[in-house]
């Protein structure tokens, strides 16, 4: 899986996106990381260790589950959906795909001789995953989280603290993920010699988008093999997109399958026509945020604008640069699902399949009916869809309850 560390021989660009736009202090640290990614990741020792952890600690491979009742609830006559598979990343240890990346990066940090881990988190899943990896590998860990997110994701704050991490509340700006990322970067600039910054999404300066995608690729590799074991590839592979790590991880394995359509689902919040959404690819412009050139939600003067999503994990004004390139090349297409549609999908999934999904994943599920309808129309037959169910929804119970969905 890690033999193919892509794009490291370049400037970390994906078409006109990506690159490395950081304070000069951080450039040597990113160069050091780039060397470590190229040397350590493909090494047998690292691969063996990570693979062993994936199998016996994370619980990989995660199942591919056929969600028949949910499929019928969104497509009662079966005109659009032949098969709906869920790649069950919610069954990973800590409850989300984030652990794949966090374990890989903390293991890499250890190999690099770093003595402290920092991370930023929105929904808390990446924070929990990083705190878990740091506990397992014996490194101290500080996690930055916006105050608003700490309130709406209280169970994850408790988890991180139980795991021994220090959760550092961020009280600036919108007090959400974007501010937590700013604060983590400030910490990193200050402590760059000893500290490893475990970035949570396939975003940020080179080599992070490549590193995260390489570590998350395990999702798609497994899903593809599991689909083939059932006799066929899916027609469409769907995943939610905030920064976009679960989507990139799921899609990497299918990029060369020209007939497999890739669809990302962004957070439309209270609607794409309002200012309260986090649909960067739909409404963003090309800009530079947190170290990479990509689509960002900013005004005509280059100021980043506030975002909104009911899902803390999608509430981010940027997107990984590879997504920006996939959109430009039309290899992937993107849709947007509102808060209400995501809440409905989460409710339906719980009632039809007994799976309580994270609100991030609920966005992907909220788009399934429309994606299936369009693709079935194009192909002239009901289609096979694989959805990355990126995380479980325990953390979102209070949000679901407050919207009358429990």
């Amino acid at each position, binding site marked *: 899986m890690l033999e193919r560390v892509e794009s490291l021989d370049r*400037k970390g660009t994906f078409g006109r996106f990506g*690159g*490395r*736009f*950081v*304070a*000069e*202090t*951080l*450039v*040597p*640290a990113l*160069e050091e990381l780039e060397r470590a990614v190229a040397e350590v990741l493909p090494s047998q020792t690292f691969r063996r260790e990570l693979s062993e952890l994936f199998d016996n600690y994370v619980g990989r491979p995660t199942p591919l589950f056929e969600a028949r009742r949910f499929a019928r609830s969104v497509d009662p006559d079966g005109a659009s959906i032949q098969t709906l598979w869920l790649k069950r990343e919610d069954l990973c240890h800590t409850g989300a795909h984030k652990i794949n990346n966090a374990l890989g990066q903390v293991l890499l940090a250890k190999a690099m001789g770093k003595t402290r881990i920092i991370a930023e988190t929105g929904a808390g899943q990446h924070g929990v995953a990083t705190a878990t990896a740091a506990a397992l590998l014996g490194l101290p860990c500080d996690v930055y989280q916006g105050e608003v997110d700490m309130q709406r994701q209280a169970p994850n704050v408790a988890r991180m603290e139980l795991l021994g991490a220090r959760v550092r509340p961020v009280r*600036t*700006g919108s007090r959400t993920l*974007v501010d937590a990322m*700013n604060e983590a*970067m*400030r910490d990193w*600039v*200050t*402590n*760059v*010699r000893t500290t490893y910054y475990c970035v949570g999404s396939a975003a940020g300066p080179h080599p992070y988008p490549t590193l995260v995608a390489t570590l998350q690729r395990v999702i798609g590799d497994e899903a593809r093999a599991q689909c083939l074991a059932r006799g066929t590839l899916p027609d469409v592979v769907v995943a939610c997109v905030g920064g976009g790590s679960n989507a990139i991880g799921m899609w990497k394995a299918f990029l060369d399958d020209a007939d497999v359509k890739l669809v990302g689902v962004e957070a439309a919040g209270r609607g794409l026509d309002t200012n309260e959404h986090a649909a960067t690819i739909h409404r963003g*412009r*090309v*800009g*530079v*945020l*947190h*170290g990479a*050139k990509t689509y*960002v939600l*900013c005004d*005509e*003067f*280059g*100021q*980043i*604008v506030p975002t909104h999503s009911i899902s803390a994990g999608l509430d981010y004004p940027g997107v990984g640069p590879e997504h920006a390139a996939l959109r430009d090349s039309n290899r992937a297409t993107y849709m947007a699902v509102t808060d209400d549609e995501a809440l409905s999908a989460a409710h339906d999934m719980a009632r039809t399949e007994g799976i309580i999904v994270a609100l991030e994943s609920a966005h992907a599920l909220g788009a399934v009916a429309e994606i299936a309808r369009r693709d079935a129309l194009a192909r002239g037959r009901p289609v096979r869809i694989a959805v990355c169910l990126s995380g479980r929804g325990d953390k979102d119970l209070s949000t679901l309850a407050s919207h009358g969905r429990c």
Partner: protein
Amino acid sequence: MDRCFADLERAGKKALCVYLCVGDPSLDESVALALAALDAGADMLELGVPFSDPTADGPVLAQASRRAIASGSTIERVVDAARDIRRQTNAPLVLFTYYNPVFVVGEARVASLAKDAGIDAMLVVDLPPEEASGLRNACAARGMGLLPLVTPTSDAARMEAILRLSVAPFGAPRGFVYAVSMTGVTGSSAADVAAMGRSAETIRAMFGMPVLVGFGIDGGESARGAAGPRGAGPDGVVVGTAVARRIEQGVSQDERVRLVRTFVQELRQALDA
């Protein structure tokens, strides 16, 4: 700018560069504050474009940025303020910014606006030289410099890379090297003054340009410490956060102007002592 440094060298003086986040608390007042700082002894100004997500800045300048954005400050308005300042002074003016405002408004457009307003050089804090060729050329074509930054994490190989990549096309003025005194954000404290002096001399020899040290200078004593003795160490200092703190403290424009003026005088006296 080159002439300003030559004059300072002849006079045996260290340069004092004051950073102002333009638009904090208002654009008009920034012009008044800039002129007061120059009148009180600053040799040059860094005019800061506020940015919503200033990851290289500590809480004081981040807050100043927020106030400036709230007051309607944009890169174009900062340039307008620079034009007002230029009408009243010959002091070197540096446009200090994060990259996104430049990229979104357009590199060529920003370079043209800046040149027309009388700005001498630009400094973009999150634009490593590898990514800077477009803006560097746009600046050079208009006779402006794009100032290089070096930091304590820049080892010899990295400094060579910065130097190689920072060479502007023929004819562009050269300006100075901004030496960040520590690994940290603006407004952090406790820089290693002795190490800074040594590294400034290495940097000057390597780049063949004056070196100004910034980050962590909060008063006369630290300015004097950072600048080092005459004829040695860096060519001057940049002070930003400590100025923003004075602006934050003042309750009226008169008081803010007075606080900044008094503070800059203190810095000047310390540097000249």
